[in-house]
C-alpha cells in the first residue's frame, strides 16, 4: 500500500513538473490595428509565429487608437501591462522616460540599426541613446484634392504635385464656392488641427515654438518664423474664410463624405486615407494628392509607429524575439501595405508594391524623403500641446482672440505647464 502511495505521489509530481516545463511562455501583444486588411495581416503573422514557436505563444489584445494611451498608462501603473505594445513612436519614448518601456538596445542587431534612418531612431530614443521602441511604420501627410473641382476652377497643378504656400492659399480661394445667400457650398480646404499641417509649415519655415536650452530645459519661445507659419494657417479660416471652423471638431466619416460630395475640395490627412477614398468612392471620384513645399525646406509629417516591450515583463527576451519577427523586412512590408502606410525599413521600402501607380502608392512614396516627425522631441509634448497650446489656437480659429494675444497666453500658460512637468 505504501509503495502504491509513493508511486502515485511520484507520478503526480512528475506530471506536474512536466506540465510546468512543457507549458509554453505566453506573451500578450496589444495591437491597435483596425483596418480590416491590417487586422488580417497581423492575425496571419501572429499565427505563423505561434505555429513556428510552440514554446512562445502570442495572444493579441486588440485596442483602439483612441483609448490606447489610457489603457497602457493605467496598465503600467497597475503593474498588469501587456508584454508587447504597438504605439506611436513618441509614446514609446515617453513610456521609456517614465520607466515603463524596456530599453531595447541589447536586442537590436547592427543590420536592423542600419536599415532604419537615424531620424526615426531618434524619435524612440532618449538623449543618452537608449532605444525604447522598435520602429515599424511611417507615412506622409498629404493634401487630397478633387481633380474635377480643380478643373472646374481652372487650376492646373504641377506635375510633381508639389505646391507653394501661396499656391495653396490661391487654390483654396478659387475653390471655395458660395450660394446666393453667401453660404459656403464648397470649402477650399479642410486641414484638421490634429493632422498637424500647421506644424509642418512651422518646420518648413525653420520656426520654433518649443526650444531646448543648453542646460536641457524646455521653454515655450515662439519665434517670428513660427508665428508667420501659424498665421498663414489660421488666416485660411479667419481672413480668407476658405477653411471651415470644422477643423476643431470634425468627424472622419463626415469628412470623407464631404470630400466625395464636393463639400471639401481639398483636405489634409495621412496618406493611408487613400484606402478609404478608394473604398468609399469605388473609383468614381477623380482624386489626387498634393504636397506643400516651403521656401526654406520641405517637410511632411511621418508620424512613425513602433513596438515597445513592458519593462516588468517576465519574458523580455521572448518578447524581443517576437518583436524582431514581427518587424522583419517581410512582415513590416506586409503590415505597411495592408495599412496603406510605409515600412520604416529601407529593405522593405525597396519592394515594388510601395511604388505602384495603383492606389497612388508612387505619389505618396515620392514624398518620403521629406518625411520627419514634426513634433519636437520633448517629453510630454502631447500633454503640452493638448493642454496649453491647441486651446489658444482654437480661440483664434473661432475668432474669439487675435493671434498675438493667443500666442502670448500660450507662452505664459505653456511655460507654467512645463515647469510643473519638471522640464524647466
Amino acid at each position, binding site marked *: 500500500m505504501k509503495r502504491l502511495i509513493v508511486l502515485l505521489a511520484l507520478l503526480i509530481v512528475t506530471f506536474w513538473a512536466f506540465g510546468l516545463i512543457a507549458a509554453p511562455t505566453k506573451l500578450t501583444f496589444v495591437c491597435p490595428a483596425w483596418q480590416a486588411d491590417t487586422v488580417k495581416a497581423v492575425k496571419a503573422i501572429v499565427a505563423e509565429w505561434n505555429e513556428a514557436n510552440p514554446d512562445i505563444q502570442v495572444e493579441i489584445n486588440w485596442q483602439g487608437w483612441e483609448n490606447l494611451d489610457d489603457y497602457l498608462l493605467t496598465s503600467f501603473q497597475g503593474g498588469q501591462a501587456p508584454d508587447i505594445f504597438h504605439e506611436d513612436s513618441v509614446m514609446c519614448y*515617453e513610456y521609456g522616460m517614465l520607466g515603463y518601456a524596456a530599453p531595447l538596445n541589447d536586442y537590436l542587431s547592427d543590420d536592423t540599426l542600419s536599415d532604419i534612418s537615424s531620424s526615426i531612431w531618434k524619435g524612440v530614443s532618449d538623449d543618452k541613446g537608449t532605444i525604447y521602441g522598435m520602429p515599424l511604420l511611417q507615412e506622409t501627410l498629404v493634401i487630397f484634392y478633387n481633380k474635377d473641382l480643380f478643373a472646374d476652377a481652372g487650376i492646373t497643378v504641377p506635375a510633381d504635385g508639389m505646391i507653394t504656400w501661396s499656391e495653396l492659399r490661391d487654390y483654396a480661394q478659387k475653390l471655395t464656392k458660395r450660394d446666393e445667400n453667401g453660404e459656403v457650398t464648397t470649402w477650399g480646404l479642410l486641414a484638421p488641427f490634429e493632422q498637424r499641417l500647421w506644424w509642418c509649415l512651422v518646420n518648413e519655415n525653420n520656426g520654433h515654438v518649443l526650444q531646448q536650452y543648453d542646460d536641457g530645459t524646455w521653454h515655450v519661445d515662439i519665434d517670428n518664423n513660427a508665428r508667420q507659419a501659424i498665421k498663414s494657417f489660421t488666416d485660411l479660416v479667419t481672413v480668407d474664410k476658405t477653411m471651415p471652423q470644422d477643423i476643431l471638431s470634425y468627424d472622419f466619416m463626415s469628412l470623407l463624405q464631404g470630400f466625395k460630395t464636393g463639400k471639401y475640395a481639398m483636405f489634409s490627412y495621412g496618406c493611408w486615407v487613400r484606402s478609404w477614398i478608394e473604398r468609399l468612392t469605388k473609383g468614381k471620384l477623380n482624386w489626387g494628392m498634393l504636397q506643400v513645399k516651403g521656401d526654406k525646406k520641405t517637410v511632411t509629417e511621418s508620424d512613425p509607429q513602433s513596438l515597445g516591450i513592458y519593462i516588468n515583463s517576465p519574458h523580455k527576451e521572448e518578447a524581443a524575439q517576437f518583436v524582431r519577427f514581427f518587424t522583419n523586412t517581410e512582415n513590416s512590408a506586409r503590415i505597411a501595405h495592408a495599412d496603406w502606410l510605409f515600412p520604416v525599413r529601407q529593405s522593405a521600402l525597396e519592394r515594388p508594391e510601395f511604388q505602384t501607380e495603383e492606389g497612388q502608392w508612387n505619389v505618396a512614396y515620392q514624398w518620403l524623403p521629406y518625411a520627419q516627425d514634426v513634433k519636437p522631441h520633448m517629453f510630454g509634448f502631447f*500633454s503640452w500641446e*493638448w493642454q496649453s497650446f491647441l*486651446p489658444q489656437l482654437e480661440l483664434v480659429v473661432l475668432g474669439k482672440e487675435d493671434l498675438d494675444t493667443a500666442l502670448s497666453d500660450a507662452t505664459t500658460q505653456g511655460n507654467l505647464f512645463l515647469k510643473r*512637468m*519638471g522640464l524647466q
Partner: protein
Amino acid sequence: MRSNDGALKEERLAFPFLVPALVVLCGISLYPLIQGITRMFYTYRALAQQTVFVGFQNVELLFQDPLFLRAFSNTLVWTITSVGMQFVLSYWLATMLNSRFLRFRRMFRGIALVPWALPPVVVSLMWRYIFLNGGPLNTILHSLGMAHPPNWLTDPHLALWTCIITNIWMGIPFVTVMILAGLQTINKDIVDAAAIDGASYIQTQVNIIVPSIKKVVLIILTLETIWTFNMFDIVFILTKGGPGNASLTLPLYAYENAFMYYQAGYGAAIGLLILLCLLVVVVFYIREVLR
C-alpha cells in the same frame, strides 16, 4: 433598563461578526483615498526622470494655475445650474404626474424614467450627434429660418451650456421620481383642507407641499450636487473641455492631469479639493437631517 442592557450586549456580540465586512469596506474605501492623498505630495520631474517628494507644492500650484481656476468656476456654474434646473423642472413634472386629473399617469411615469435608464456615455453620444453643426437640431433650426444656427459644441460661450442641457435632460427622471415619491406621502386631506380654507396654488405649494417633502428635497439636492460635481462623462464626450478650455470642469481636469499629462500628484490634489468641496455639502446635509 434591563432591555437596554440586553441590546448593548447584543451589539457587543454582533461586533466581531461585522469586523470582516468592516475591513473589506475600509480596504475598498479608505485605501484608494489614502493612496490619493499620499500621491498628492509627489510629482514626476521629467528632466530628472524621477518622482520626487514636493510636500504641498501641488496644492500651492493649483492656485497659480489659471486653468484650475477656470475649471473651478466652470464646475460651480455647471453644478448650480444643472441641479437648480433639474429640481425646478422635475418638481413641475412630478406635480403633473401626481395630479389625479392626468390620464395615463402610469404610462407617463414609465416614459419619464427612460433617460435615467440610459448610460451617461450613450446619452452623451446621442446629444453630441444632435448638437453637431450639421446635426438634427441645427437642421431643424435652419429649416425654421435661422440662417446661422449656433455652433453648440464649438462656440466657447455655448459649449458649457450645451453640456448643462444634456445633464439636465439626463438627471430629470431620477429627481422627478424622488419628488413624486415624496408627494405621494402627503396626506391629501391636508391639501383639500387648505383648498377649502381658500389657499391659493402657490400658498399650498410653499406652506404645505414643500415643507412636507423637505427631507426628500434635501436628499435629492445633496445627491444631485455630489453626482453633478463629479460628473465626467458628459463633458468628456461632448466637448472634451473645449473649445479653448471653455467647458473644462474639475473632474475632467483631474483626469487629464493624472492620465494624460503624467501629473498624478497634481490630479490627486484636484481630487482632494473636489472631496473637500463635497464634504461641505455632506456635512450640511447631515446637520439638516439630524436637526
